């Protein structure tokens, strides 16, 4: 057998070994090497076993590792046996076969062990990588969870706390160990709503994946902590509920702030009483959801004379008085369970809403008045006394409307004030139709002049010595489209509170001057409010009105009430009045003797006339004469006025007896129904003497229009 055939045999064996990776190699070249190793191993001195092992190794190195490869190799050697020739070489061939088997097996074993080792190491390395990454990841998560500003806890499905982060431990004041001994269900708060625990039950039962709510907890130290709670269910791989994760944010501060803001929004900062907002909320609620036959009552309380306290003793004392009043009212209302609130300024209100008998509201109102009558102790001050007027509304809650209730209470209060202060007046539904609430008035005041709803009527002032008209007083009327003619009492006070008085005052001035110019009256008295005296335009307005009507300034008499003069501490209004008298206008002090008659006030301004308040005559109504003391005081007053050259007018003279009385104390001029009622001006005949000629005042010769005089 030739070497060539041996090579061919080896090459075929390699091809048929079926080892996939073996194809990477050049079989022809490998077959040549195998062939020469085979032949060298069969030389007489060769170590055939060693050569066989080498063959086995070469096969494995060429990736012929499969069992089939050794079989094929054995076959090549077996086929060569007949060509060997002698016994020695046959033995060598057998040894070579043994060596080949052993060498191949050993090489495969080495390769196998090496590759198995490699793949095990690779899998271990991969697992370590994963484990490390997981543990790093877990460590990161743990740090994240532990440092999270929100509280996080994990519990099992029975509610045992398993883990809780630092935030949660801080939030609850328990250590992790302590938390682990507490079940979730024990973290209740008495005010928990039922649905929180219903949701919780649904969650642990697997019916709910997550719920969120705001919930209170009680800390270890007993304090309450408010949380924004979110609980999530974690299921096991089979989908069964396994754990619960709670995340909670501490919102205690936010809740407290909210509560504080809510309190501030609904309470009066000065007195701490509920404010208008809260009061109206409660009233709305009482009206919206009334029990059967339930009655409610509102008491509208307004202090009498508080403005005087404020003006005379300053705002600080005024505020303290309000605080003392609030306390007094709260105490006085306590037995009845009324809610007392401060609406504004010196206006208070009380709501009675449960278990009312019909008489209760009036009784409570009287109790409150009585409580206020006791002098108030004000820090650092002498006791202060304030009175109050109270308007009461009592009605069935069902079907009532809070806005209407407040309106009615306001009307009742108004009636109480008008009835002479210090009184309680219950709302009379009849009266309501004829009155406007302050609110309605305030709403309608703007545009009054433009809408042409104002009118003037004139009431003459009559000289008592000869019955001639001394002047006429321009009196304002509001021809309300629905309410008819309204007297100034109804709206001037409100107009003075907002700036509406200024255009009204200007209109009065223009109208009165124009009417005077068209009449035969000697002069006109107009009433000026304090607000006008503070208006920088006022003097110009007067000048313009006089010029337009071409009147002599002395025909204009400016009436200022005594109470206003009392409070004129500022230089501006005093300067305004000085300027007016400088122009030639006359100054009349109105309502003298009503409030705090201050003779010193007479010295401060260049007064021309003085009008005694009609109140002086009230006690004489029904024909009773003044008592001697009153009479003496009044006549002294008149004498005093005369001594400083003031003309004295008596207002409100309604009867012949009163006419006698005012003459008896020396009054110069009388005004009242007894002489003439106020009437609108109707220019019947042109009274002007001639165009262009400025009229000079001449009371003595002036014709008297429509005087209803008995004399």
């Amino acid at each position, binding site marked *: 057998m030739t070497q060539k055939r041996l090579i061919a045999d080896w090459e075929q064996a390699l091809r048929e070994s079926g080892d996939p*990776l073996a194809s990477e190699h050049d079989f022809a070249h490998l077959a040549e090497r195998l062939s020469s190793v085979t032949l060298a191993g069969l030389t007489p001195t060769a170590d055939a076993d060693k050569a066989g092992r080498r063959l086995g190794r070469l096969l494995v190195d060429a990736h012929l590792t*499969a069992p089939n490869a050794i079989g094929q190799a054995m076959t090549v050697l077996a086929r060569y046996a007949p060509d060997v020739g002698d016994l020695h070489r046959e033995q060598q061939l057998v040894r070579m076969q043994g060596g080949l088997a052993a060498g191949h097996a050993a090489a495969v074993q080495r390769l196998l062990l090496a590759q198995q080792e490699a793949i095990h190491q690779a899998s271990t390395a991969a697992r370590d*990588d994963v484990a490390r990454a997981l543990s790093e990841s877990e460590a990161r998560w743990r740090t994240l969870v532990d440092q999270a500003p929100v509280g996080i806890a994990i519990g099992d499905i029975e509610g045992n706390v398993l883990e809780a982060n630092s935030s949660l431990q801080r939030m609850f004041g328990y250590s992790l160990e302590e938390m682990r001994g507490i079940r979730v269900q024990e973290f209740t708060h008495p005010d928990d709503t039922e649905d929180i625990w219903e949701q919780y039950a649904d969650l642990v039962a697997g019916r709910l994946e997550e719920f969120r709510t705001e919930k209170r907890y009680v800390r270890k130290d007993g304090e309450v902590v408010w949380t924004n709670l979110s609980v999530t269910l974690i299921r096991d791989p089979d989908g069964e509920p396994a754990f619960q994760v709670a995340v909670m944010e501490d919102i205690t501060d936010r809740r407290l702030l909210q509560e504080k803001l809510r309190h501030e929004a609904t309470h009066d900062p000065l007195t701490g009483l509920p404010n208008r907002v809260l009061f109206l909320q409660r009233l709305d609620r009482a009206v919206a959801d009334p029990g059967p036959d339930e009655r409610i009552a509102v008491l509208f309380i307004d202090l009498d004379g508080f403005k005087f306290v404020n003006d005379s003793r300053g705002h600080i004392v005024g505020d303290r008085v309000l605080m003392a009043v609030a306390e007094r009212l709260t105490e006085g209302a306590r037995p009845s369970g009324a809610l007392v609130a401060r609406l504004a300024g010196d206006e208070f209100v009380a709501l009675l809403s449960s278990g009312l008998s019909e008489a209760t509201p009036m009784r409570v109102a009287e109790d409150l008045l009585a409580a206020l009558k006791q002098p108030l102790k004000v820090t650092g001050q002498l006791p202060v006394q304030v009175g109050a007027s109270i308007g009461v509304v009592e009605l069935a809650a069902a079907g009532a409307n809070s806005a209407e209730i407040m309106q009615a209470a306001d009307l009742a209060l108004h009636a109480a004030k008008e009835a002479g202060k210090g009184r309680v007046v219950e709302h009379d539904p009849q009266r309501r139709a004829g009155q406007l609430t302050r609110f309605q008035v305030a709403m309608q005041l703007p545009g009054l002049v433009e809408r042409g709803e104002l009118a003037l009527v004139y009431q003459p002032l009559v000289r008592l010595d000869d019955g001639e008209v001394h002047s006429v007083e321009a009196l304002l009327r509001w021809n309300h489209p629905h309410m008819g003619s309204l007297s100034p009492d109804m709206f001037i006070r409100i107009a003075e509170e907002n700036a509406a008085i200024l255009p009204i005052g200007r209109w009065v001035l223009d109208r009165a001057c124009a009417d005077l110019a068209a009449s035969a009256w000697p002069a006109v008295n107009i009433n000026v409010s304090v607000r006008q005296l503070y208006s920088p335009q006022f003097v110009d307005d007067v000048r313009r009105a006089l010029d337009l009507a071409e009147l002599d300034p002395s025909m204009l008499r400016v009436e200022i009430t005594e109470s206003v003069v009392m409070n004129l501490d500022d230089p501006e209004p005093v300067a305004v009045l000085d300027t007016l008298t400088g122009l030639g206008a006359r100054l009349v002090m109105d309502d003298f003797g009503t409030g705090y008659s201050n003779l010193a006030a007479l010295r401060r301004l260049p007064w021309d006339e003085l009008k005694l308040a009609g109140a002086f005559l009230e006690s004489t109504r029904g024909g009773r004469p003044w008592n001697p003391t009153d009479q003496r005081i009044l006549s002294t007053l008149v004498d005093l006025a005369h001594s400083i050259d003031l003309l004295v007018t008596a207002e409100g003279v309604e009867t012949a007896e009163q006419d006698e009385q005012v003459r008896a104390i020396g009054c110069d001029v009388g005004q009242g129904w007894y002489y003439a009622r106020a009437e609108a001006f109707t220019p019947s005949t042109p009274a002007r003497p001639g165009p262009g000629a400025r009229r000079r005042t001449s009371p003595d010769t002036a014709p008297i229009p429509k005087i209803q005089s008995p004399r």
Partner: protein
Amino acid sequence: MTIPQWVGDDIDLTRPSVSRVYDYYLGGFHNFASDREMAEKAIADWPDLPLIMRSNRAFLRRGVKLLIEQGVRQFLDIGSGIPTVGNVHEVAQDLDPASRIVYVDTDPVAVAHSRSLLAGNANAEVLAGDFTQPAKLLAEVEELGLLDLDRPVAVLLNALLHFVPDPLDPAGLIGTFRDWSPAGSYLLISHATHELHPPELTRAHRDLYKNNTASPMTMRSREQVAGFFAGYELLEPGIELSEHWHPDGTGSPDQAERFPIWAGVGRKP
């Protein structure tokens, strides 16, 4: 540190892995009992499987050789599996030691093994990465800095795409790699096909993978494989059976149809 995408995956050695089963087909010992059990089952159904793998292996070798001849010195081998003898870096660096190779596989064991095998080889690296997340993968390839993106790169998708099901849009994924590749780059694909064998045989094989591994197979037609070369110019002879693709005399071109693998190499103009 970025968390590897496979963190959290169990390295479950009781479950066959595609790369270790492939190693077993090739006569390697880088495998575990579960891999061998499944491979034996597959071979029992289809005794040609080891030869089919050998044919695929031989195509890869010839393909890399041709790419080297075309002047390519950079290779991105995705789905590289267990590095056995005759791997890309061995073939390429044997022809030019300066050749650079980046291996990518999702199998953490294959990656770990590759890493130990490549220790000391400055021009070869391995990444744990996923062909179906190309943006992330390419970002990591670039971060590695081994490949010079001013020069052509050959993307090798050797026996990979039949593990990428249609809903994952293999053509679109290939497009991402194509757009990323510099002009003059290459794409190499070998892909199992159902076109040459009775449906029962291929279905049984598919079921085996579907039921035992995390990688179900999608065998595709020649036309579908040709479609993957959109944007590339196919080198001669186009899409061919692996045994017919540039035969070098070591294979069995006369029995080419025993080996159901479509093979092709394309160049990005």
